[in-house]
């Protein structure tokens, strides 16, 4: 398998854009990535779409072929990948394989999402099926997505003594990082007191400690080393790329399940932990080599739990790391310099692509206003509905 490089990245700002069709958001992001690379649509050799559950023509979500039919009828191969919110990371993985395998010299991954308002509901048209846990969790107990993170957050308070102030401080950090990111939807700084004063949604978690839902789009163009050198782009290698699914005995109660079968010693959020371990192994790197991480902070709980799960600190140590500034841009292990989901609001399938865009900007030194000094290695980690995980490691 040959090495894979980032040729270009681009994104549409996050927000609410009811007048902009999903395909137009996708075309905007991919167009920006093409300009970043110095390429045109006709240079694409393959296209992978992270397919939405919520919107998209023909009832099958965003499809790469649909985007090409609307912008450039190239005749190139496309892939359309699912994986819930992990689809963006999975799409980068699939695109990297297209390059590494020799199938394409230049290929792109794109994700675009327009989300329904409020609590993320069932996909439109879903039948009431008693064997479908996404039906059972709503009809039998009304379990919203935030309550799943709230149950983890409460348990962490019990196990490690995490305080509500520390959770609030995680929100403060994410919002502070976003001040410097023009793509983020929420760019105002906030204080611990303001976070604690925001309404409780699912105790112990508050409104400013949970990610909203947004519209957004992002794209990543990958290619061979010779393509990267020909274009003269900064050399950023996709050093590791991996996907994974959940392992038996994982103690995490996953959205939308209503039970789990924990086995002693089984890893928590195994789909992400496994993907990250595989991506690191492929890159030949360890957690100590990583200069920054972009992780899926659906809530403040992940800001604390995931750096531990990914091996950046010991279980229970993240509270100290956060409150001592070690997750800051100039700390030992910067977490979500982009501002994370808490500052963007989740545009589900696009989110995993935005993470990789941010890694590229950081490693090129182009993350003006939120730059991690001297960043050479960046890692993404993302979780998707249905026990899907993905992780991408970029190296400059």
């Amino acid at each position, binding site marked *: 398998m040959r090495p894979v490089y980032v040729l270009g990245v681009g994104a549409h700002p996050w927000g609410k854009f009811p007048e902009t069709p999903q395909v137009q958001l996708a075309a905007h992001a991919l167009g920006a990535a093409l300009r970043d690379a110095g390429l045109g649509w006709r240079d694409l050799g393959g296209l992978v779409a992270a397919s939405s559950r919520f919107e998209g023509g023909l009832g099958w979500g965003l499809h790469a072929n649909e985007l090409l039919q609307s912008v450039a009828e190239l005749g190139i191969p496309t892939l359309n990948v699912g994986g819930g919110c992990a689809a963006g990371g999975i799409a980068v993985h699939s695109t990297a394989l297209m390059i590494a395998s020799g199938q394409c010299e230049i290929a792109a991954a794109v994700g675009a999402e327009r989300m329904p308002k409020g609590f993320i509901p069932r996909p439109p048209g879903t039948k009431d099926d*008693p064997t479908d846990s996404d*039906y059972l969790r709503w*009809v039998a*107990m009304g379990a919203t997505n935030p309550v799943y993170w709230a149950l983890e957050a409460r348990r962490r308070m019990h196990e490690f003594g995490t305080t509500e102030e520390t959770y609030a401080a995680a929100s403060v950090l994410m919002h502070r990082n976003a001040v410097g990111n023009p793509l983020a939807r929420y760019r105002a700084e906030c204080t611990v007191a303001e976070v604690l004063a925001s309404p409780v949604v699912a105790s112990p978690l508050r409104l400013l400690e949970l990610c909203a839902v947004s519209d957004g789009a992002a794209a990543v163009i990958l290619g061979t080393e010779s393509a990267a050198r020909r274009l003269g782009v900064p050399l950023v290698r996709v050093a590791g790329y991996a996907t994974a699914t959940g392992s038996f*005995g994982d103690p995490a109660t996953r959205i939308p399940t209503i039970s789990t079968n924990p086995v002693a010693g089984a890893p928590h959020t195994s789909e992400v932990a496994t993907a990250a371990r595989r991506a690191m192994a492929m890159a030949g790197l360890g957690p100590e080599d990583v200069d920054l991480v972009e992780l899926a902070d659906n809530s403040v709980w992940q800001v604390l739990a995931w750096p531990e799960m990914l091996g950046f600190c010991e279980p229970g140590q993240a509270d100290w790391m956060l409150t001592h500034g070690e997750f800051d841009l100039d700390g030992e292990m910067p977490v979500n310099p982009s501002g994370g989901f808490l500052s963007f609001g989740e545009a589900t399938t696009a989110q995993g692509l935005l993470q990789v865009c941010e890694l590229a900007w950081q490693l090129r030194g182009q993350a003006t206003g939120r730059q991690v000094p001297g960043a050479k290695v960046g890692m993404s980690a993302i979780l998707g509905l249905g026990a899907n995980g993905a992780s991408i490691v970029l190296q400059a």
Partner: protein
Amino acid sequence: MPTPTSIPVVDGLFDVQDGAPALVGAKCTACGTHYFPRRARCSNPACNGAEAAPVRLGPRGVLYSWSVQAYRPPPLFGMDPWAPYAIGLVDLPEGVRVMAMLTGAPPEAFQIGSPMQLRLEPLRVDADGREVLTWKFAPVAEHVA
């Protein structure tokens, strides 16, 4: 439970035998792993797709975690009248961790580690005047402050 005046919110998730309620799950015929709700096969890769047979679970457990939902969920959830309520995860002795509404104490009064007891309670009354029952867990009586 299933009487002329009450119906389950979904068939097949719980039953009552000799007056005692239980959740209805499944047990792997090979490794003995328990599941809720019922399912056809065990997902332990060591079992190579072995069948899982129906089994009754509970009715007692230990509270693993809990939360109070302060905002009304989407309409598929028919709780009526609606008010903020607690949801918890309860570890059953069979090794299953089950999610459920919590009852028997004020919403913010639950404690991790408390012994819990299964109860079947109404979510609402349907158009025919029948109580629509769901499963909940309540602190075991002697542990209520």
